[in-house]
């Protein structure tokens, strides 16, 4: 829309902050690594096992997770015109949890060798993807029959309740050990991703981002409301589908690879709107990308508890750090920009 150039400086600052956070994230951990070693390792003059196989993939995962969740949250908030919407309102997490619960908790019911075979890294990823895909498919089929976008929101929530009910039933029949494993998945985790897993993650993430970029024009038109958007020649059903598919690609793979990471998707779009003071998605989309990546890198650095051997659950940190920031912003500006 207007004066994109006035946002140049904030964007440059954000990119700089992102780069600093990226290096700080690699540097900090149970063993702290000096910046010089990181730099040398990145350009390939020295080999550092921790950086190449642990810290670097983790930092990339943090960027993908933070930016992807932020963007899918933004898409959902605009589509549903609801400030409480997040990436998971369509039942993506609940579907993923159902898939993972069936694998981890259900293995006790199926029993035997089958069970030990099932619980590997990829089986959890596949179960989570399949679960979220199937729930989303159900939501899409039902929602193609309704004209009202708000009804889709309710349908998504209903599917969420159904799946969490099934998870409760499964939990009731599971052993303590299995429950613990399931709860650990629920904490979310950015580490433990190999380069090949990261590659698959990155490809699907890119498809989601491309679809989001294609949706920018439609999203801006939706700011007027659906009837105005329709009168401007926007194909509502097609745009709605595009936005939902973009969200499910982003939020679906993130949940599959990193677990159900809360809060980021809801909070980052609000944080960005407060700071950039605009509703234009051409500005918001890249800004949300940067903020999401930065916040996730910071949260991960804190979760590693630098110089100690402990790692806190990332899901707890995102909310502990993020919630007060959003509350502070809202109180300070006294007005929610939406």
């Amino acid at each position, binding site marked *: *829309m*207007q004066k994109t150039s006035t946002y140049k400086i904030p964007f440059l600052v954000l990119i700089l902050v992102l780069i600093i956070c990226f290096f700080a994230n690699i540097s900090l951990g149970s063993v702290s690594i000096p910046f010089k070693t990181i730099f040398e390792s990145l350009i390939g003059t020295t080999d550092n096992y921790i950086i190449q196989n642990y810290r670097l993939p983790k930092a990339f995962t943090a960027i993908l997770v933070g930016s992807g969740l932020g963007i899918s949250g933004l898409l959902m908030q605009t589509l549903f*015109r609801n400030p409480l919407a997040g990436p998971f309102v369509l039942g993506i997490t609940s579907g993923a949890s159902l898939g993972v619960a069936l694998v981890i908790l259900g293995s006790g019911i199926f029993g035997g060798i089958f069970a030990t075979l099932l619980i590997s890294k990829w089986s959890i990823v596949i179960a989570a993807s399949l679960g979220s895909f199937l729930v989303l498919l159900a939501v899409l089929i039902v929602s193609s029959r309704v004209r009202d976008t708000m009804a889709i929101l309710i349908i998504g929530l209903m599917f969420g309740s159904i799946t969490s009910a099934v998870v409760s039933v499964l939990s009731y029949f599971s052993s303590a050990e299995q429950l613990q494993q399931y709860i650990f998945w629920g904490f979310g985790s950015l580490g433990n991703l190999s380069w090949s897993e990261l590659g698959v993650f990155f490809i699907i993430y890119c498809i989601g981002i491309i679809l989001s*970029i*294609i949706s*920018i*024009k439609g999203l*801006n*038109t*939706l*700011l*007027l*409301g659906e*009837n*105005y958007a*329709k*009168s*401007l*020649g*926007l*194909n509502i059903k097609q745009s709605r589908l595009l936005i939902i598919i973009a969200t499910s690609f982003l939020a679906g793979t993130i949940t599959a690879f990193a677990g159900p990471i809360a809060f980021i998707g809801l909070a980052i779009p609000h944080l960005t*709107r407060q700071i950039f003071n*605009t*509703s*234009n998605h*051409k500005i918001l989309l890249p800004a949300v990308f940067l903020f999401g990546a930065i916040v996730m890198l910071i949260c991960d650095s804190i979760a590693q508890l630098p110089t100690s051997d402990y790692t806190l659950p990332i899901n707890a940190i995102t909310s502990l750090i993020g919630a007060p920031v959003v509350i502070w912003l809202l109180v300070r500006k006294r007005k929610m*920009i*939406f």
Partner: protein
Amino acid sequence: MTEQNQHIILQTEHLSIGYKSKKKESVIASNINIHLEKGELIGLVGGNGIGKSTLLRTLTNVQNSLSGEIFINNKLLSEHTPEDLAKTMSLVLTEPIASKNLTVFELVALGRHPYTNWVGNLSSEDIHIVNQALELTNIEALKHKRCFELSDGQLQKTLIARALAQDTDLIILDEPTTHLDMYHKAYILKLLQKLVKDTGKTILFSSHEIDLAIQLCDKMIVMTKDNVVTDSPCNLISKGTFETLFPKDLIVFDEKTGSFRVKK
């Protein structure tokens, strides 16, 4: 096509409007024959629940007609593609816009949506047309204000500017004068009259301001329980159409002043 047909922007033939459910059809109005020509200001009046909104919703393709035809620029409404229609007809609706955080300029610029590229970048021509729309509606000073800061009258002008920026032959407004004080009611309708003169567009609006419409419109569509009449305000007065508009127990139409009076 005759010479006269070239100037007709919107035409209906034996149009019948209403709602259709699985079991039955409920007809709200039938046999509607109207034709709107280029450069006319047309007021649509009628009592509450008579079907003004249903007619506008049908003409703007929000809901389907029960029977009969609607022609826009001599082409059936159903044959227009959505993109094509967006360049022919723009709307000002009664519903509030979803995001009040947009600036006036941004809101008006969204009217250029049918003409912009895939990401919605404004060309210098688009910006020129947006500025022209702001100028025509006298809101250049508000350009950088956000919509939640505007009064109802200013917001209505902004929405009209957005419709102008869409650069269509026909603009349809659904009750543009609701929530406005007496001065701004007259101001908005006068503005519509000026826009018709300045731009040669056709503007159709529905309103309850019958006396103002009589003074300003080129043509009026009067919806009563029995039929839908289209004519110039003077002819409608002499035909006595306005007397049939409302039940006669409370108010009467005064032909001399062209307004309604409460019975003593």
